[in-house]
């Protein structure tokens, strides 16, 4: 594999892996904050026990999210030095702000939250988890501000072959950001809600504290339904925006080479044949693509052949068509997962009345099987977004091939080495994390730890 290919593989692998942990961190922080708020508001100990149970799983997840995030902060410099030089003037700013405004917030307050149950007042403790939730969501905002610039560069000027910042405000009102950020953040909330729903169902099914876990089941099922629908609606807005902002990505996601007729059908599924520029065995819904793209029964979309010819005129000779099959399939996998999650949320929510879900074994089993869905959806969404942007790393400004570190400084061997090492340690971490998830899930929710009081010497003692 070429040095460029290795660099791309490394970025893809480490980033997708990182993003297995991030959405739970973002979403579960909010759900924990809600549970603890209910504890503080009602004084009902059940909510405290629940907060501690979900808190354990949160911390197991959080640890891997944080450490894999350290690599993210530095890997633009590692493998993408030329990218960093080209765009650092703009791209570095949101990254630095993310660290300063978000990472400090979440990591300081998670310390207070984790260690402070007996050290600070109830209200301060509650404040801590809300600060963590704020920090993780803010962190999402700033990193997506950076990513949005790669999708849709705004607020820059080209000086001596480099992009320099012209308007920070433009970065913040980037139209791409305001579809991408809500979509991603709400998807993170959905991920955590599904996580909570699946594990609550598992506990109820195994008769572990069903009286307790029905509370988190209820919270989660409503959350899945609401956030699932919201993700879809925002995603629809995002697709509409894509038609004008990155028409090539849209065409690839739909596998349309020729311009569509005025009433464009939407291909539900089919076999993409990149050689003949056709979709075999396509199942299509008439007019739906026009509706998705323009919110109108008619409207033609440009095909990749037309767009390629335009791009050659604008940017010079080259191939501007992204890998079509991964973009097309990833898009559909994401949508399928989203639909399934909404249906699961709907079913669970309907069965909340009279607590019918408690005895419905089939429903509970189905809910357990929703667990992998948000992970698959998140990964697919990012694959579509990032693969569909190729051959650009910054859309229309810098090709991915020009962004990689010079081979003289970072030879392919070095990337191989690091790829092998990171893959090994990431695999080990995944095994450890899954082991602990399972262990703490099976332990169930135990009553709060033995109370602690101050001893005569002024130190805290566990009362046993």
């Amino acid at each position, binding site marked *: 594999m070429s040095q460029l290919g290795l660099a791309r593989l490394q970025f893809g692998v480490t980033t997708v892996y990182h993003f297995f942990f991030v959405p739970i961190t973002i979403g579960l922080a909010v759900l924990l904050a809600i549970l603890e708020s209910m504890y503080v508001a009602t004084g009902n100990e059940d909510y405290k026990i629940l907060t501690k149970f979900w808190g354990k799983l949160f911390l197991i997840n959080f640890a891997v999210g944080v450490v894999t995030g*350290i690599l993210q902060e530095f890997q633009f410099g590692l493998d993408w030095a030329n990218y960093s030089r080209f765009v650092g003037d703009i791209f570095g700013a949101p990254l630095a702000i993310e660290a300063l405004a978000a990472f400090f917030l979440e990591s300081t307050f998670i310390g207070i939250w984790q260690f402070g149950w007996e050290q600070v007042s109830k209200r301060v403790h509650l404040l801590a988890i809300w600060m963590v939730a704020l920090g993780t969501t803010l962190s999402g905002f700033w990193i997506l501000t950076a990513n949005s610039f790669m999708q849709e560069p705004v607020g820059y000027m080209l000086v001596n072959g480099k992009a320099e910042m012209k308007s920070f405000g433009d970065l913040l009102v980037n139209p791409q950001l305001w579809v991408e950020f809500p979509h991603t953040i709400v998807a993170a909330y959905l991920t955590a809600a599904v996580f909570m729903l699946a594990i609550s169902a598992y506990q109820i099914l195994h008769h572990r504290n069903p009286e307790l876990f029905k509370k988190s089941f209820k919270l989660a099922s409503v959350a899945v339904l609401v956030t699932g629908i919201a993700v879809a609606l925002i995603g629809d807005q995002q697709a509409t925006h894509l038609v004008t902002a990155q028409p090539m990505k849209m065409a690839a996601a739909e596998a349309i080479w020729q311009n569509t007729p005025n009433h464009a059908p939407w291909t539900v599924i089919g076999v993409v044949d990149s050689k003949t520029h056709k979709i075999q065995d396509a199942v299509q819904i008439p007019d739906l693509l026009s509706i998705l793209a323009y919110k109108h029964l008619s409207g033609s979309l440009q095909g990749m052949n037309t767009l390629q010819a335009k791009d050659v005129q604008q940017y010079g000779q080259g191939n501007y068509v992204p890998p079509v099959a991964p973009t097309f399939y990833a898009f559909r996998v994401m949508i399928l997962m989203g639909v399934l999650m909404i249906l699961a949320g709907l079913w669970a929510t309907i069965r909340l009345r009279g607590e019918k879900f408690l005895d419905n074994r089939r429903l509970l089993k189905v809910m357990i099987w929703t667990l992998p869905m948000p992970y698959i959806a998140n990964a697919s969404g990012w694959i579509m977004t990032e693969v569909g942007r190729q051959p650009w790393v910054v859309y229309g400004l810098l090709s991915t091939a020009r962004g990689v570190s010079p081979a003289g400084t970072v030879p392919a061997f070095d990337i191989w080495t690091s790829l092998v090492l990171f893959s090994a340690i990431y695999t080990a971490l995944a095994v450890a994390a899954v082991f602990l998830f399972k262990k703490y899930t099976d332990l169930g929710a135990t009553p709060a730890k033995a109370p602690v009081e101050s001893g005569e010497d002024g130190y805290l003692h566990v009362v046993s």
Partner: protein
Amino acid sequence: MNLNVLWFVLIGVLFVGYFFLEGFDYGVGMIYQFLGHSDTERRVALNAIGPTWGANEVWLITAGGAIFAAFPEWYATLFSGFYLALVLMLLGLIARGVALEYRSRHDNPGWRRMWDWALTIGSFIPALLWGVAVANLVRGVPINSQMNFTGNLLTLLNPYALWSGLAMVVVFLAHGAYFLSMKTRGMISYRAKQVVKPLGYGAVAMVLVLLLWTATLKDLRLAAVPALVGLAALILIAAAVVAMTKNRIRWAFFLHGAGIALLTVSFFAAMFPRVMISSLNPQWSLTIYNAASNSYTLQVMTIVALTMVPIVLAYQVWTYWIFRRRVGTKSFMEY
């Protein structure tokens, strides 16, 4: 002071914070399993850094982000150039972070031994490699006219840099031992006090040699400032040992920490106004001017930093206040 200088200073401050705070975390990580003879004793040490190590580490992340935002050419040259060293450091940091959180979550002895070593090695590697990196930054590395590093990992592992790495390890070990003497009770504190003086003396000797070695480097404009600051750092590190012999533990910890801070300042002062020194041609060095973002970006970032840094400092200090008590075997232990 123009904004380029301000950002150089600000990044220096971030590294001071990082080395001061994570310095004792790394020290504790390297030493705790040797000071703690029972599992409970080891956990005392880990819980002493438990509530705060995560935020301490963000000083490094922020320093990385600040370099990217203010001096993108520095970010690109440094991290692509020091590639394998950085990869090793990241592996260490990854192993260490997860080890802290996972170690005590399962009581199988094999599990705990595994994470103990992950934590110890994962603390040793960044301590060593930061020493190596800083020395190479001061000494200069092969950088061509295109701002690209042309050496390899072995270029970085020269005797001077390795000495600096080992010095950093010993300085952090001592820092961790001072911290445990101050923050824990019982056997851990007792044993930390036993080892802290030899470690403190070791730190003095290592830093003394490092400073003398640095003074012999040609091309270094050993102006008065870095030399004097380095000397002051040495004196503070020595004073910490003296304070320890008088059983002024808190004084000892902060004196040693101040020594680390001044050592960092001295290295930054030695580089100034360069950020990456080219050993091939002085003209090819990266400076705070040719490596910087444009003045608009620097202005925006200055406003952000001057607003956020005081807030961050305030709540971080508050956390240390909340967890000011010493940790003993009967304390509430999360780790």
